[in-house]
């Protein structure tokens, strides 16, 4: 029973992290109609910035805040210099250009920080396990990820639902031509949205960094999951991204945790331990396939086009 609680928290933590990544992607894709494969690179840059700034400043929190700002600026710069010129074009052009950006960022990182990767050590107060209930210890840092991600989700909800900018963002997700026709400065809105998406990706990257290592190409695998989430959640919908990310995080973690034991009931032990990891990594894609068949627009589509 205690194990179930712990695995549930693991799933929640992973899901919330995926949400941060997917939220930026779904905003950019839904509002700007722009396919950004380089979103994973921004995630990587967030982690590299954090690893550098934490060493410079000597403070974990301050380093992370600086890294967040740096990723936001990088996102805005990227939009201004490169991506702005691609909006009118075909999706295939977006894919090609942003794939080029992935290669560009990977090699830029190799040149600046070297090929070996970096470590982002945690301050001592975050490395102790935290007792959440009698007998259940949970890493303090993973709890911190859950808290921060929930706060960001709440903030994002308030911004999108309660402010004028948020109203424009929602309007943009439902009908881009119409808000342009109403005299809204679309260019500025796009730059802002892209910067916001970049900052969210950077936040996900820098929060993941102490758990994993900071290395070249770290954003590429996780980007696939983020795309799965926005397909399941409905493109352009923050609420959809949130729920789908939690779903995906839970299914992935609980699948990994309990599928081997379930399979051992019907298969031999050796066969079960081999089949279970393969099967549990398929579950997410299975869910996506089912959603695509039943509700091709995703579970919570942003609006009818």
């Amino acid at each position, binding site marked *: 029973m*205690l*194990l179930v609680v*712990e*695995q549930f928290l*693991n799933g929640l*933590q*992973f899901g919330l992290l995926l949400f941060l990544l997917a939220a930026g992607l779904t905003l950019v894709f839904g509002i700007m109609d722009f396919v950004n494969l380089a979103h994973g690179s921004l995630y990587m840059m967030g982690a590299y910035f954090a690893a550098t700034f934490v060493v410079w400043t000597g403070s974990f929190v301050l380093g992370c805040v600086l890294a967040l700002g740096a990723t936001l600026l990088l996102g805005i710069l990227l939009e201004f210099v490169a991506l702005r010129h691609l909006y009118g074009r075909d999706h295939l052009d977006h894919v090609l250009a942003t794939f080029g950006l992935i290669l560009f960022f990977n090699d830029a990182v190799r040149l600046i920080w070297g*090929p*070996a*990767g*970096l*470590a982002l*050590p*945690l301050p001592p107060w*975050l*490395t*102790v*396990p935290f007792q959440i209930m009698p007998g259940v*210890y949970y*890493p*303090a*840092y*993973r709890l911190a990820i859950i808290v921060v991600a929930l706060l960001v989700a709440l903030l994002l909800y308030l911004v999108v639902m309660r402010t004028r900018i948020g109203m424009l963002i929602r309007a943009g997700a439902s009908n881009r031509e119409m808000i342009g026709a109403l005299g809204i400065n679309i260019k500025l809105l796009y730059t802002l949205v892209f910067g916001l998406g970049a900052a969210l990706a950077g936040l996900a990257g820098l929060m993941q960094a*102490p*758990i*994993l*290592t900071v*290395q*070249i*190409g*770290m954003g590429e*695998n996780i980007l696939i999951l983020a795309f799965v989430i926005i397909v399941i959640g409905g493109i352009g919908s923050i609420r959809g991204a949130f729920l789908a990310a939690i779903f995906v995080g839970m299914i992935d*973690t609980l699948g*990994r*945790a309990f599928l*081997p034991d379930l399979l051992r009931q019907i298969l031999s032990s050796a066969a079960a*331990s*081999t089949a*279970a*990891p*393969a099967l*549990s*990594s398929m579950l997410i894609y299975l869910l996506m396939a089912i959603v695509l068949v039943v509700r091709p627009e995703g579970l919570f589509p942003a609006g009818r086009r």
Partner: protein
Amino acid sequence: MRTAFWLAGATVLALANPALAGDTIKIGFVSTFSGPTAVIGNDMRNSFELALDHIGRKMGGKPVEVIYEDDGQKPDVGKQKTEKLIQSDKVDFIAGYIWSNVLLASLKPVVDSKTMMVIANAGPSQVAGELCSPYVFSTSWQNDQTPQAVGEYMNQKGVKSVFLIGPNYAAGKDMLAGVKSTFKGEVKGEEYTVWPSQLDFSAELSKARASGAASIFVFYPGAAGVQFLNQYAQAGLKAQMPLYTAFTIDELSLPLQKENALGVPGAQQWVNDLPNEQNKKFVADYRKKYTGLRPTFYGAQSYDAAQLIASAVEAVKGDTSKKDEMKAAMQKANFKSVRGAFKFGNNHIPIQNFYLQDVVKDADGSLALKTVATIVKDSQDKYHDKCPMK
């Protein structure tokens, strides 16, 4: 008409060329030079190049040409690159291979073309057993051997029970099987993770804790070893469940693992401080040539691979068409290995000692790997009986 004549002449020359190709010794080297594990491939290349420097970049009086190919840690890519080296570069030797799954995919073209092969890391059980082949040698080990030594060490320490975690591919299965074959205590559970994409081990660590086992054994080469140690420390397991490892802590991962690796034991057939002369020269010259870097066991095995190839070419005085004579020369392991003297088994896998390595603080405060004791002497892999060698 005249053009046709020249063309014919050129063709004849081109056809005659393979006979002339014997002027250089061509070696193909397949390893990972891109992606997060490229640091391992670089270490292997550095060490291979250093070995060539040490022998004057000549073998049997002929200059040596090495063609490095990147497998991207993918079996299908590794196979393509291997086929390219054999068919279009027509290499005399093929060496390298970090990953067992890449090696298994690449083995068939090598064996079919009877190309001489020296494996510098991967040691899948199949290659030691039913897939062993006369022209295939290894300067590393069979996957099970190192974890077997770890299991022995855990017995010596009186460890009662263990929880096993490893990646779900050929080497991961061999490694966990290796510990299980020697460890006398209870195995409370075993988990395989998706390789190489899964980097978060929270679910597995939670299960390990819930199992109530006295210790954890893991095999995570490359960056995954850094990630595992991070998460193991963050989960607060270091005080509760001591960790035992194989191929998880090395000179490449240690600078990233830092304090997390302190006091975590592992087994290895080579450690940088082994006291033989060749090893002292290898380690000192490596650190001189590649400033800021330290050689790893991957590099030591690649260094030995170059020496083994050189010993074969010397034996036939550069005539690489005499494959059976080269094979006979290689079986003697007649070179100064950086791990100290060793013999080849019937399956061309080394019979060698395994040492206990520990992470300690150097005199200057930096972390280093150190040999603590010899765990097993003259260990031979357990698959050699299954090798028909024909």
